[in-house]
């Protein structure tokens, strides 16, 4: 592989959501630490998987990168510009290169717009295609995602979940973006349809040279589609590595537990597997544990884990982990 080019660089990204009390004189009484200082790169043409359980901040990360939420602090460099500092027209122009595919294909398409209007809207807003050219482009996009071009005049309710997700993909492609944030694009779909959408995303990546940030909680699907994988827990990235390395040699206790929790579709393997069963639930992000976030559920936890935040260090080439110990 040739030298990897950084497409997107996230540095010390924080996103807190304020918790307010009082009706007239509202005051802030706390904050949800949704994303609590994360840094990573996304290279051109790769798929970076972002996994974690619900509430760990993975969707917030995706949205903060796209500036759908403005970060509390930190930078998001995209082709040299810090998106977190861009405003107004400059930011609007940049958005062309960054698109998103949403989780729920039933909620993310406006039921009062035709498919043609939905896919045409980004072109309308950015003035890239107008009139007959736009109609033509919409039909091309529909065909690209495996739908009939004549569907442009139909409404979203006439389509199944998998077809709607294809419409969502076509909309994301309308402005020829460079990076697409896929926020759990398949979790609402049936198993046999999931494979259809994943194959479509892979095909589009190879023909259009797209870069994906693929957010999911399904570890087996993330492994299938990603080149590198970042594991999130309670607002921070605990481990980041090449996918084969991560699955063969997980170094963070949380990654190990997460991997061992995934059921294999094979009774012969299941018979022999030992599971690491985590105790309890994920702590509240309003008041996260001191030091290491994972220490309350970690079987290796010692005193130092409560006192010091573990550094996110590189333990072998391109394998980063945030843990005080070498538990391998």
């Amino acid at each position, binding site marked *: 592989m040739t030298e990897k080019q950084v497409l997107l660089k996230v540095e010390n990204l924080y996103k807190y959501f304020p918790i307010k009390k009082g009706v007239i004189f509202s005051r802030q009484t706390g904050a949800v630490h949704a994303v609590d200082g994360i840094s990573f790169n996304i290279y051109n043409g790769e798929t970076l998987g972002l996994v974690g*359980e*619900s509430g760990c901040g993975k969707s917030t990360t995706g949205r903060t990168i796209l500036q759908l939420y403005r970060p509390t602090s930190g930078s998001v460099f995209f082709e040299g510009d810090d998106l977190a500092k861009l405003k107004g027209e400059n930011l609007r122009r940049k958005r062309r290169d960054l698109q998103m595919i949403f989780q729920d294909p039933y909620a993310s398409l406006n039921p009062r717009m035709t498919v043609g209007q939905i896919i045409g809207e980004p072109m309308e807003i950015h003035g890239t295609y107008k009139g007959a050219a736009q109609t033509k482009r919409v039909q091309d996009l529909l065909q690209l995602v495996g739908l009939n071009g004549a569907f442009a005049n139909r409404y979203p309710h006439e389509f*199944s979940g*998998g077809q709607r997700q294809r419409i969502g993909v076509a909309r994301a492609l309308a402005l020829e973006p460079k990076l697409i944030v896929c926020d759990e694009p398949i979790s609402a779909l*049936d*198993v*046999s*349809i*999931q*494979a*259809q959408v*994943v*194959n479509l995303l*892979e095909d589009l990546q190879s023909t259009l040279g797209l870069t994906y940030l693929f957010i999911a*909680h399904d*570890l*087996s*699907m993330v*492994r*299938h589609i990603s080149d590198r994988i970042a594991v999130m827990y309670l607002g921070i990235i605990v481990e980041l590595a090449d996918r*084969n390395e991560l*699955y063969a040699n997980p170094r963070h206790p949380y990654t190990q*537990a*997460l*991997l*061992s*929790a*995934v*059921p*294999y*579709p*094979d*009774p*012969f*393997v*299941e*018979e022999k*597997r030992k*599971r690491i*069963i*985590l105790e309890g*639930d*994920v702590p509240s992000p309003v008041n996260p544990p001191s030091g290491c976030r994972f220490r309350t559920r970690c079987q290796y936890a010692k005193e130092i884990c409560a006192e010091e935040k573990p550094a996110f260090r590189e333990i072998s080439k391109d394998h980063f982990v945030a843990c005080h110990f070498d538990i391998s």
Partner: protein
Amino acid sequence: MAELLKVEGLETHFQTREGVIHAVNGVSFNLKEGETLGIVGESGCGKSVSMMSMLRLIPSPPGKVVAGKALFEGNDLLTMNDEQIRNIRGAKISVVFQDPMTSFNPVLTIGDQVAEPYRVHHKAGKKEALDRAVKYLELVGIPNARERLSDYPHQFSGGMRQRAMIAMGLICEPQILIADEPTTALDVTIQAQIIELVKRLRDELGMAIIWITHDLGIIAGLADRVNVMYGGYIIETAPVKDIYKNPQHPYTIGLLGSLPRMDETEYRRLTSIDGLPPILLEKPSYCPFEPRCRYAKERCRKENPGLKQVEGDGHFTACWVNPKTGKEY
């Protein structure tokens, strides 16, 4: 092992504005004492509806069980009177529902709700029932169970609520526990906790389990036997190892091929099943999977194959074509 439940030719219809939906089209299976049966299929294949029909939990109208028998200890659940079925539901057969967020009543305490089946079925007093609720909440791993009896459902996390649901299902020590996608709404680490818990309880209490899911991974480590459903039919049934090692129905083969595997080192393109599941506005006179099937032959468009035995012991499939040879049996 003795047979506990015997379902024969179950058919359920739903009246909708578009017409009659044939949700279940003749489902037959047996369940032995202490057996764990997995029912796998995609949304709309009739897996939940067939179980709910059996327990007469289908709202009617629009739903109607139009044919079949469900013999539990020799008595037909579908023809007994309301009082008789009430004495079975929640006591001898109980259900754990999918969504722990919505299946509790938000204005009643956890303790009252978990204890309710025991109070109703055993005519127990409040104190006795609550003591028993504590025992079962502890069994499913709720810390400080006694203090938490007076909590309301919103004070429990998703995983805890699902545990409490299981405690409620177990409180009368049923012979059959029907788990309707109990872990679908949960995270993988919590899912692993719940599955370990159910396995442990199954071994301790010796009950039979029917586990409904769309996740072939969960079933692999849990079930003794698997029924694969499609279009309101059981299209393949076999002991768990046979299903995964030697799937015979093209749908089962496709479903397994569409799953990425964690132990893969080489990249493999997923085999997707083209097309969509059928909308069953009439009982199919042909194979319901035919429009999506890559092995489909002339005969598949004309006749609906019934379940017939293939290869190993207890392995049945509903297909005219042998997928290994691509020819008719």
